């Protein structure tokens, strides 16, 4: 987990080789409330850093999930489409959203590590 990074939009990314797995943070799922619908990007879709890549909807509202890195989508997590409540139960575990083949690993440098993200959350309280 040492190489997990976080964005200010409350996404996390964990990189294994050239592929990053992206999800939303536990803080984000708590803010959303009960997740009832997830829409994921199709494999093959090319994303630029900051693009709205996925949609997550709670009972109350719809939110977009922005990709913290550029690249091509290689997979989506069908398990959270079939059971959106998984996003609440295991946001930073099994409820990842999609995987991206990184176009520019240098973009990771602009993200926060766990310590910096936790400090960032404290500024939002």
């Amino acid at each position, binding site marked *: 987990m040492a190489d997990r990074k976080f964005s200010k939009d409350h996404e996390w990314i964990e990189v294994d080789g050239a592929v990053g797995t992206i999800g939303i943070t536990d803080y984000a799922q708590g803010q959303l409330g009960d997740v*009832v619908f997830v829409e994921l990007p199709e494999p093959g879709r090319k994303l630029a850093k900051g693009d709205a890549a996925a949609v997550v909807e709670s*009972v109350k509202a719809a939110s977009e999930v922005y990709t913290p890195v550029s690249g091509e989508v290689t997979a989506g997590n069908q398990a959270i489409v079939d059971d959106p409540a998984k996003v609440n139960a295991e946001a930073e575990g099994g409820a990842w959203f999609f995987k991206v083949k990184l176009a520019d690993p240098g973009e990771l440098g602009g993200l926060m590590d766990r310590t910096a993200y936790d400090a960032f959350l404290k500024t939002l309280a």
Partner: protein
Amino acid sequence: MADQHPELVLQRTPLNALHRALGAKMVPFAGYDMPVQYPDGILREHLHTREAAGLFDVSHMGQLRIRGADAAKRLEALVPGDLQALAPGRMRYTMLTNEDAGILDDLMVTRFDDHLVVVVNASCKEADTAHIAKRLGAAVEPLQDRALIALQGPKAAAALAPLAPDAGRMAFMSGAYMRVAGIDAFVTRSGYTGEDGYEVSVPADAVEALARKLLAQPGVKPIGLGARDSLRLEAGLCLYGHDIDHTTTPIEANLVWTISRRRRAEGGFPGAAIVQRQLKDGPARLRIGIQPEGRAPAREGTALADAGGAPVGRITSGGFGPSVNGPVAMGYVARASAATGTKLQAMVRGKPLPARVAALPFVPHRYHKST
């Protein structure tokens, strides 16, 4: 800075401290600091209300008394509802209309021999009071020192019975003065969830003690505004400012059932001629239920097209219905597209999602039937 913008200072209901003690997430609503949800979350709170009983703080709503033996007749000059047909202790849902037959607010009116009790929306209460007083004068009295709580769900009657033995005998859509846990209260058997239940008006300084007693009854949990919204949407009930407003008429809003034969024939309320014309010729558009076919919620503001892609209307309330376990919505469409089962397309994030016109309510009402 709050002191430079006094209009941004949120008002608090007398239950504010209790909401916080119960761990509520507070949000601004109609100028009040209100609980949108408690730690259980909207989904569980919604389902709990349908299975057991939910306690809602609705103290932000406006409560009025209109004095006079002729109050029912006089208020009829402002609403299309048949208030004179109400027996003492019975209540009715109606609306204040303007000269264009637009809806200024929707309200509940309970009739007694020498007065009416009226409950109006929080965001409209000052305007409503002024509007009614302009016609009825000093007979109108805002009940500002009173709180209002709603107890809703199939176990509501059992939960209220130990505190108010007479409440169990009340018919749905009736009101009575009685003591609840020793407190002088005005109780109606009514609500905004599609379930059996009550609304209880008590002095502001007594409401926290009463709320705590109700929360101690078996099956009662506190429910926030989030679940109140999803419950009323599944029940097909209008939310003022969204599903109805000054641009929609009662006929367009499919509230024909609230207007009796006498009032349709006699008129005598603002916009009556327009209502009568729409009753005769049919309105150009109608409020309908909308069932999206997939899992994606279609929310307020979503454009609606017919099967051929021509624009026919828009969604005015939409989201996820926890009891339906799927997306539900309501909105207005051109009359030609309003028949139940008509195929529609909801334009969600630029994509047309298949939907169809659905009968309202989405979840059958389970109001108490008098024996």
